[in-house]
C-alpha cells in the first residue's frame, strides 16, 4: 500500500527524527510512503502574511504535483504544512475562479481533490488495523499529550472530534501502553514562530506548558508538531531559566513513542537527535505481557 508523503521543510532538517520515526513505523507495518517529487515549501506563516494568492499557490503546487504523480492520498505529518495545504485545497474547491487563477500561477492543471491525511488519520487508517501484532512493549509511564495550536485549529480543516479537548493522541498512547494524564495545557500555545525573534515569549508560554505537565506527574510529553517540539525541546535551557525550575521531561514525537512500543531501537527513531535526553523514557519500557 503506497501513500504519498509530504515532509515539508521541518521534517527535512530540524525535526528529521519525526520523519525517520514515521518511516520506521510505516515500514514495520508494511506501509510504503512515497515522497512527492519536487515538492516545495508550503508557505508557512510567511506566505499568508504577505499575499493571499501566494499562500494558496504555494501549497497548490504541491497538491498539483502529487495529483499528477498519480497519488490519491497524502499524509502530512507537520501540523502547519497540513493546515496550509488543507486551506489551499478548500479555497480552490470552493471557488472555480480561484482554481483557474492558481492554475495560471503554478502553470499546472489539477482537480484539487486529492485526499489529505493528518498524522492522526494516517495512524488510524493504516497503522492501527495492524498495530497490535507489532506492539511488543509497554511504554509504562505517564505521558502528557500536547496538541498545541495548529493540530486543533481551524476545526473544520483539522477535523478533530473535540477540538477544545482532543483525545486523538491519547488513544495512540494508550495503545502504546502509556497512561495519558489529564492536564490543562493540551491546546495552549507554545510561542510558535517567536522562537527566534522573541525567545522570552516562548520561554514563558512553553514554560507554563512544561510546568503543568510536570505538576501532573507526566514522565514525558508527546507532540505531533515540529514547532511544538522545537520550542519545548530545543529551547529548554531558556525555559528553565525563565521558570527557575529544572524540569527535564523529554519531548517525543508520537511516531517515536509508537515506534518504541513496537520494539524499534531508539537510534532508528532518531531519539539521539533531541536536546533533552530521552534516556529515561527508554528505560521505563517493559515488555508487554502476552
Amino acid at each position, binding site marked *: 500500500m503506497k501513500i504519498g508523503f509530504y515532509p515539508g521543510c521541518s521534517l527535512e532538517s530540524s525535526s528529521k527524527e519525526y520523519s525517520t520515526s514515521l518511516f520506521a513505523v510505516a515500514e514495520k507495518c508494511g506501509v510504503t510512503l512515497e515522497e512527492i517529487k519536487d515538492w516545495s515549501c508550503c508557505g508557512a506563516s510567511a506566505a499568508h502574511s504577505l499575499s493571499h494568492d501566494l499562500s494558496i499557490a504555494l501549497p497548490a503546487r504541491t497538491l498539483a504535483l502529487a495529483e499528477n504523480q498519480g497519488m490519491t492520498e497524502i499524509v502530512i505529518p507537520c501540523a502547519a504544512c497540513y493546515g496550509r495545504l488543507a486551506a489551499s485545497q478548500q479555497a480552490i474547491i470552493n471557488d472555480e475562479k480561484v482554481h483557474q487563477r492558481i492554475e495560471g500561477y503554478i502553470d499546472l492543471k489539477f482537480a484539487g481533490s486529492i485526499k489529505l491525511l493528518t498524522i492522526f488519520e494516517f495512524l488510524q487508517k493504516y497503522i492501527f488495523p495492524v498495530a497490535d501484532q507489532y506492539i511488543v512493549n509497554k511504554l509504562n509511564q505517564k505521558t502528557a499529550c500536547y496538541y498545541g495550536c495548529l493540530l486543533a485549529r481551524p476545526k473544520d480543516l483539522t477535523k478533530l472530534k*473535540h477540538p*477544545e*479537548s482532543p483525545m486523538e493522541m491519547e488513544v495512540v498512547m494508550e495503545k502504546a501502553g502509556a497512561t495519558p494524564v489529564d492536564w*490543562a495545557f493540551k491546546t*495552549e500555545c507554545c510561542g510558535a514562530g517567536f522562537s527566534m525573534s522573541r525567545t522570552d515569549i516562548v520561554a514563558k508560554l512553553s514554560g507554563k506548558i512544561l510546568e503543568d505537565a510536570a*505538576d501532573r506527574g507526566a514522565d514525558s510529553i508527546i507532540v505531533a508538531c515540529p514547532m511544538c517540539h522545537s520550542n519545548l525541546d530545543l529551547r529548554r535551557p531558556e525555559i528553565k531559566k525563565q521558570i527557575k525550575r529544572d524540569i527535564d521531561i523529554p519531548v517525543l514525537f508520537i511516531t517515536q513513542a509508537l515506534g518504541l512500543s513496537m520494539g524499534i531501537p531508539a537510534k532508528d527513531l532518531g531519539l539521539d537527535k533531541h536536546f533533552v535526553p530521552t534516556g529515561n523514557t527508554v528505560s521505563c519500557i517493559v515488555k508487554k505481557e502476552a
Partner: protein
Amino acid sequence: MARIGVFICHCGENISATVDVEKVAREAEKLSGVGYAMDYKYMCSDPGQTKIIEAIKEHNLTGIVVGSCSPRMHEATFRKVAEKAGINPYLCEIANIREQVSWVHPKSDATTQKAIDIVRTLVQKVKRDSALFPIKVPVTKTALVVGGGIAGIQAALDIANAGHQVILVEKSPSIGGHMSQLSETFPTLDCSQCILTPRMVEVAQHPNITLHTYAEVESVSGFVGNFDVKVRLKARSVDLSKCTGCGTCWEKCPNKKIPDEFNAGLSFRTAIYTPFPQAVPNKPVIDREHCTWFLKGKCGLCAKNCPTGAINYDTQDEFIDLKVGAIVAATGFDIKHTDFFPEYGYGQFKDVIDGLQFERLASASGPTGGEIRRPSDGEIPEKIVFLACSGSRDKAKGIEYCSKICCMYTAKHAMLYKHKHHEGNAYIFYMDIRSAGKNYDEFVRRAVEEDDVHYIRGRVSRIYEKNGKLIVKGVDTLMNAEPIEIEADMVVLATAVVANQDAESVAQKMHISYDKHHFFAEAHPKLRPVETNTAGIMLAGACQTAKDIPDTVSQASAAASKVIGLFSADEMTREPVIAVVNRMMPPQFTTCTGCLLCMEVCPYHAIEREEIKDRRTGEILKVAAKVNAGLCQGCGTCVAFCRNKSIDLQGFSNQQMLSEVMALLNKPF
C-alpha cells in the same frame, strides 16, 4: 348587466402631477360595462366619499373602481363607502395609480397610459367580483393554557377573571415553572416564591380554572373557536382525593438518590416526591422511571405507610377530551445544561455551575439553605467568577441570539453572593451589559458601586483545575487587552436560554410554526407578537423567545386579551376571501374528483374530506374536498394546485385573474 363606477383621485397633486387624471377618467368611461366615471381632488375625504355614494345611487352602479393610492392604504375605507351606499363591499376594487405609477414615473404619456391600463384591468376584475358576506363561526368559550409557569398562570387568571372557563395543563407535578426555582428576582430583589405562590394558590382555587398537573397535551385538532384537544393525565400513582399531603410517604421512601430536577441536580430526591414544599397541588407523584417498585417489584413502603391508603401502583395514564375555543402556548424554556463548553470544564469540574444551579444555592429553600457553598467540598467560596454570555451570541456554539436575561441575573447573583459573604470577591467577565428595562441599569450600577462587584470586559478562553482552585484565563479588553488569570473557588456560567427539549413536538402537535432554535413563531414580529399563524392559538412567555418576568407577564396578559376578544361574541366574524370548492346540482354535485391534493398543500389544514351522501339511503355518492371557512386564510395555493379547477378563491378567482391579464395587455376577454 354590470354598471361600474370609476372614481379617479388626484390625491392633491400626488397623482395629478404626473398622471393626466382627467384623461384616465375619460378613457375609463369608454370601457364596456362602465356606467359612470369622474375625477376628484381627494377621494378619501368626506366630500369625496359623499360623491361616490351619490354617484352609486344616482347611476345605479353595481360595483366601483377607485383609482387612487395603494389598496393597502384605503381599500377598507372605500369598501365601507360602498357598503354605506348599499352595495356589497367586496364589489369595490382599488387601482393603485399612486405608489405604483404617479410616484415612480415621470410626467409623460407613458405614465398616463400605465394608469389607464391599470384602471382598465381593475374594471375587468370588479365585473367578475361576487358579493361576499362575512363568515360566522361558532366559538366555544373555554380556553386551554398549556404550561403552568408564570406565563401560563397569568394568562389563565386573566381569562378566568373575565368570566371564561380555563383549563390549565402542566407537565410537571406542580405549577410554578422556573420562577419557582429562583431565589430573588431583579430589579427589586423580591423573593421569587413569595410573589409567585399566591398566584399559584389563586389558580388552584379559582372557580373558573380547572388545573391538570402531571399532564401533557396529546393531540390538537379542529380550528379556531372549535378545537378538539386530547390530554394525557399521567399516572401519579397517588389518589388526589385521598391524599392529604402529610409527607409520610416521601419520608419513608428508601430510594433517595435520584438527582433533584428542582434543585438543578445539586441534591437528591426520593422516588415518591413533590417537587418543592410550596407545590401546587401539594400532593406527590411516583417517578416510575426510578421507583424500586416499578423497576424491580420490591419495596412498596410508601403504600404500606400511607395513613389514608392513597397510593395505588396500578393506576394508568388517563386520557380526557376537551373542547376549547382558544389555546395559549406558555410552555417556557430551558437553559443549556450539556457539557458543550469543554474549555470551561462545564460538566467536568464540580464547582463550575450554571445560573439555575446558583439560584438554588442562593435560595433559602435550596440544598444549602441559602448559603453559597462549593458543590465539591461544601466550603464557602472566597472568589467567584461569573461568565456572562456562555454560549449566547456565539455562532460557533450554534446560538447566535442574545438570551436577554443573563446580564441582569448575573448582576443579581454577584450581588446576592456579596450580600451573604461581604468579604468575598465577585468577578464578572462580560461582552456587553444589556440592562434595558425599567430600573435595570440602576440595578447593575448598584452591583458595581454598592456591592463592589468587579466587571471585566472580555471573554474567558479556558478554565482548568489546579490544586483545588479553578484557574480562569480571560482578557481585560478595556485595559489594553491585558490577559487576566483569576484563581477562583467557583465559576458560574450564564448559559444560553434554549427552547425545551420537546418544544418541536409540542409545536407540531398544535400545528404552530417554530424557528430553527425551536422557539415558537409569532404571526408578525412587530405587530402581532402574541398570536401565531394558526388562528386561535396565542403565545405567552419564553416559549416564543428568551424574556424576563415583566415581559412574560405582559405578554401573557396580552395573549389573554386576544382570547377574551375572541370570546366576546358567540360567533366569530371572518373575512370572506376564502377558497370554495364548486357545488352544483346532482348527479354531478361537483367537478372535484376527490384527489385531495389541495388538502396536502393547505398550510392551515383548512381543507377537509367530505362525503357527499344520498339523502335517503346514506350511500356515499362522491368524495370531494371541502374548505373550512373558519380556517381558510385565502392564500389560494390550493387553487393553483387543483388539476381541474374545481376550487376557486373568492376575490381572486380564475376568471378574475385571467381577465386582469388580458385587460392589462388590452385584449378582449
